[in-house]
């Protein structure tokens, strides 16, 4: 068993990155995720594992530094919060187009605009539907605990390199700022140069006489070849949808009503379920762990069993669209959620279930 520590979610991401053998972190401070880079600067992994840590001049520069390192086969990551993630969208789109693996942690805060620094889940659309320009998706992981913040770093890199695609950890200010106990994994050494060349033969590592030059680009001015490339990307996303869906079912065995909630809202939903069961309301929770790919099959299956579904998100209702698509609009699906950085209470969530689903 690894080392047990009490940590903030943001710190857990940073520590897990060092332990996962990440090669580089490039970031720019923004509340509520600045602890990621602060922690790394204190730990100085460049003196121990050789991991590069650099504070860039902007979020745009940071994601492009990730681009450069990733295109050369390195495990590179960045983190930010909503307004900063908006700035990174150009780079993320380029990385999706050029098929580069990387990890982006988004500790979401309330918007739109400068919004607030308090937690929110209003960037679901941006994360799961593309975010930048062009037909692409990222794999999106939604941690609901500090432990998962740590675990999803190496998981995220595994998926990123398996599919050559950017992966996002979509959390929020609550999971980022909260401390919980976390069991840290053992140190994985960083890849050697030889391992990188073997694992990522596509990477720009310097062209030896023995191979053709490697080119990393998202550009192809020929529309027919660009279409071929798009077809290839779509095949990859299809494979991801078939193979990588992850979710957790909590108290669903006897559930008559279903919450669907991810991340911090899933924690609140669990308390609401407990309060509900004290009153005789049999509710359960489906917690998507991957938001892209979305657990549509599981929701469809549970919709055969329950009388109604409440989507609980700290937003005006974004994930609800995917839930409704999952059940082909054949079941009552409603949304409840506070906005702008307000966190809904378990009591409010239960009340919404009673009013919108049970009584509605």
């Amino acid at each position, binding site marked *: 068993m690894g080392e047990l520590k009490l940590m903030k979610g943001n710190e857990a991401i940073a520590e897990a990155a060092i332990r996962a053998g990440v090669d580089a972190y490039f970031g720019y401070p923004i509340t509520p995720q600045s602890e990621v880079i602060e922690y790394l600067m204190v730990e100085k992994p460049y003196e121990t594992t050789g991991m590069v840590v650099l504070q860039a001049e902007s979020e745009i520069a940071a994601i492009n530094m990730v681009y450069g390192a990733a295109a050369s086969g390195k495990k590179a990551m960045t983190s930010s919060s909503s307004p900063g993630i908006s700035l990174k969208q150009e780079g993320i789109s380029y990385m999706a187009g050029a098929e580069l693996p990387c990890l982006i942690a988004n500790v979401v805060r309330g918007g739109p605009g400068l919004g607030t*620094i308090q937690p929110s889940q209003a960037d679901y659309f941006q994360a799961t539907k593309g975010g930048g320009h062009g037909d692409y998706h990222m794999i999106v992981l939604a941690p609901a605990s500090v432990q998962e913040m740590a675990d999803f770093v190496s998981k995220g890199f595994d998926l990123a390199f398996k599919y050559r695609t950017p992966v996002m950890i979509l959390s929020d200010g609550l999971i980022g700022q909260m401390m919980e*106990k976390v069991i840290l994994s053992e140190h994985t050494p960083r890849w050697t140069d030889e391992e990188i060349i073997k694992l990522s033969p596509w990477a720009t590592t310097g062209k030896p006489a023995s191979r053709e030059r490697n080119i990393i680009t998202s550009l192809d001015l020929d529309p027919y070849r660009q279409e071929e490339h798009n077809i290839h990307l779509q095949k990859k996303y299809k494979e991801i949808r078939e193979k990588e869906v992850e979710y957790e079912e909590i108290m669903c065995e006897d559930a008559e009503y279903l919450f669907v909630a991810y991340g911090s809202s899933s924690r609140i939903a*669990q308390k609401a379920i407990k309060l509900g069961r004290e009153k005789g309301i049999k509710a359960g929770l489906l917690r998507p762990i991957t938001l892209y790919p979305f657990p549509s099959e599981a929701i469809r299956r549970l919709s055969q069993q329950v009388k109604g579904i409440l989507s609980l998100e700290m937003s005006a209702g974004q994930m609800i669209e995917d839930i409704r698509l999952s059940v082909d609009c054949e079941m009552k699906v409603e949304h409840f959620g506070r906005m702008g950085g307000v966190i809904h*209470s378990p009591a409010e969530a239960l009340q919404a279930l009673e009013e919108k689903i049970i009584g509605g």
Partner: protein
Amino acid sequence: MTEEIIIAGFGGQGVLSMGKILAYSGIMQEQEVSWMPSYGPEMRGGTANVTVILSDERISSPILTEYDTAIILNQQSLDKFEKAVKPGGLLIYDGNGISHHPERKDIRIYRVDAADEAGKLGLAKIFNMIVLGGYLKVNPVVELDNVIKGLKKSLPQRYHHMIPDNEKAIMRGMEIIYPVKGS
């Protein structure tokens, strides 16, 4: 067992670190713990609070609207959180600077004048440990041994020489806390 606690006061009173030590103490006795602070610029000089949950089970929501225990260190926090204590729950407050004292009859109210005591002992920096001691006297959710272990885990090495003072402060808090009559 699940204990849901809010600790609230001014930024700089050691609210967050008290919560952290409590959370670490919980870990030392193999409990599940969560520590969720109010965060952001409003903390600097303004009010700060932290929700700490200790439990034998997996913890659901780290954010709550009612608590088993409220530990209150200023008037604003008292005004805000007195009503958030569950019926039958516990409210502990420091009387320093309080003009409107708690009034509820359906909860247990204790007072620990830790700020005054810390001044007398010359331990102003660890005033929060006096408060913690008072709380542990009334509700021994964690054992003292585990608090000391928790301190060792949460304090950087360079502050470890202060652990005996911390322990002294906790013991003093246990002595000076008293129930408010009529509650």
